[in-house]
């Protein structure tokens, strides 16, 4: 009796100590490196991404789960800094995986580092096809690739007006080149004819003459892919010269763009992967839209959505595979087997052998724009496998 009573407190102490140690280890956060554009040319997109990410954190780091620490580092929209930042996160912070860039060139720089140093890399935004070129093992891209985007535009136009004549007018950046490459590949196969193809150098200000050339060609649709403010200028100048709003198709439309296109552009089309006006938002999607709008004074678009969803799928993978939390290879394997849906829109997330996702796009038509936001209706949806076109040959 006496021995039992003495043994009990010791056993209890050991139990408590053991539980304490286990708890301490479980509480050590899992680190995910997030190198993104917080300054430099793409600071808006990096900041939007971080805003979307932050909205996911309360749910992702809910009580009772081992917390995930997203270590955010600025890459200044410079590939050199992105590579250095990746190295910093890998070596100094010893992150489990990398994520974060929104620009094609910074993400390519991180991709090079990730593949070479065997660090899993989950790319939330950044559509450049070569991010999942054959042989990629550690990279997983959430956003459909830009050449596929071009393919989808051709499919969209084909569905509205078979045999249509197209005019292309765009800025000479990597993203635009990739989109137009996909479009130019698919157009003849879809029975479309590209009449005009105008590329502007970086830094161009005025498109009046080119707009006049487009008008002279009398196309059925004009595909407008300007960069930054110039996109606005091209659009305005086309509309000034008499192009109808429903002749204009923008491959992408984030909130700031749609608001700037304004009431004047009601009737124009734009592509997106997530929009506050989607026909089938899930309840969580609607909540995401409401919360984001309340916090940031504008409805979210696909950039914010992808960063939100990225945090969630990382959580999902870790919850389903606790061993993956401390092992990059296991994390990589678990991610490649992921089969889930975007919580905000219900679109499936499945990666192919190169880390490219089964791709999709929505096309919206602008109905109205005001100070608070905008209304648009969903007019088209399509899905495709990334390699339905020779995407890795079209753009290097």
């Amino acid at each position, binding site marked *: 009796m006496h021995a039992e009573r003495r043994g009990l407190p010791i056993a209890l102490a050991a139990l408590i100590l053991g539980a304490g140690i286990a708890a301490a280890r479980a509480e050590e956060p899992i680190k995910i490196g997030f190198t993104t554009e*917080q*300054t*430099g*040319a*793409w*600071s*808006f*997109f990096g*900041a939007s991404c971080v805003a979307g990410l932050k909205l996911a954190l309360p749910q992702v780091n809910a009580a009772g789960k081992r917390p995930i620490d997203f270590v955010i580092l600025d890459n200044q929209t410079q590939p050199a800094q992105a590579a250095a930042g990746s190295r910093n996160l890998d070596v100094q912070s010893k992150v489990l995986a990398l994520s974060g860039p929104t620009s094609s060139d910074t993400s390519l720089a991180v991709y090079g580092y990730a593949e070479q140093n065997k660090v899993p890399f989950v790319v939330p935004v950044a559509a450049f096809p070569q991010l999942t070129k054959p042989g990629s093992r550690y990279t997983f891209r959430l956003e459909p690739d830009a050449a596929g985007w071009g393919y989808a535009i051709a499919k969209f136009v084909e569905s509205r007006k078979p045999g249509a004549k197209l005019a292309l007018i765009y800025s*000479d950046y990597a993203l635009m080149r990739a989109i137009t490459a996909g479009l130019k590949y698919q157009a003849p196969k879809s029975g479309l004819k590209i009449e005009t193809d*105008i*590329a*502007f*150098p*970086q*830094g*161009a*200000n*005025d498109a*009046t*003459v*080119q*707009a*006049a*050339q487009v*008008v*002279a060609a009398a196309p059925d649709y004009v595909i407008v892919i300007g*960069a*930054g*403010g*110039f*996109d*606005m*200028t091209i659009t*305005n100048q086309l509309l*000034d*010269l*008499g192009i109808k709003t429903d002749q204009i198709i923008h491959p992408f439309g*984030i909130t*700031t*763009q749609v608001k*700037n296109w*304004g009431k004047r552009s009601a009737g124009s089309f734009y592509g997106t992967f997530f929009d506050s006006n989607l026909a089938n938002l899930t309840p969580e999607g609607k909540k995401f839209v409401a919360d984001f709008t309340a916090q940031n004074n504008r409805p979210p678009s696909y950039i914010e959505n992808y960063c939100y969803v990225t945090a969630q799928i990382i959580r999902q993978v870790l919850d389903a595979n606790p061993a993956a939390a401390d092992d990059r290879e296991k994390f990589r394997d678990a991610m490649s087997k992921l089969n889930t849906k975007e919580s905000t829109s219900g679109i499936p997330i499945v990666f192919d052998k190169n880390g490219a996702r089964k791709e999709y796009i929505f096309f919206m038509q602008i109905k109205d724009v005001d100070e608070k936001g905008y209304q648009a209706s969903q007019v088209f949806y399509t899905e495709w496998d990334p390699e339905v076109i020779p995407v890795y040959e079209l753009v290097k």
Partner: protein
Amino acid sequence: MSNAHTIILMSMLSSGLMLGVIFSLVASGVTIIYGSIWMPNAANGQFFLLGALLTWTMTVQFGLPPAAGALLVIGLSVAFSYLLEILLIRRFYDVPNRNISYFVLSLGLTQISAGLLSITYGVWSDQFQVPPLVRGVTFIGPFPLANTRLAAFAIAIVLLALLFALLRFHKYGRALRAVFQNREAAALRGVDVRAVYRLSFVLGNGVVFAGGILFAYAYSFDLSAAWTMAITAFAIMIIGGPGSVLGALVVGLVFGFTQAIVSTFASPTIAAFSYLGAMLIILLFKPSGLFAR
């Protein structure tokens, strides 16, 4: 001439003139400052962009009417230029070979400005558009011209004319020319050299800001506008001749038109190469500029 061809011709004129006057304004501001205090202002692109961004703030964020907004921005620019002059610029008035020092100084200012803009405007939006000065569209023959661009163009022309008149006929202008030619002699003749310097700096910057304001009304823009404009302004200044507002005007218009004309038969990138090429040719064969004083 078919309608389509008329439209293309008119679009060339419209684009050339609109870009041309804005280039001329910014280049005039830069050349005044370079001509008077010998400061090549590499930050002119940032000031140009600030003019446009502040206009956006006034009209979109604060909801002010366009005219009031523009005047407020000019007022801010004057205060800002005064402050810069007192804090930094005047330290170098008596330094020989100060153009390099000023160039570096202006690079530092560019860096600071770019950094600040990146974490403010750069986070608020990726592109900016201000409400039009005047709504509606005017037709010149078959060619529709947005009224806001017409208005911006008219204001730019008036500003350039006023600037020209100021420099040619007003006593400040004469004082400026005297100082530019020979500062010691001007001082002997009773010109307050330092006051002329200060006024030149404020005036020059004000003109650059005005260029930015009008640009915002004629086009949409994003933060990348700063550096492109800076190089263009320097190119115009060099070709036109440092210190020559007439040179800035003429060459600015030519640049505006070169882009417009070359783009009708070649890709717009070739147009960009062509005016860089023109600048090289001038630098090599007549470095003092076409309209050198």
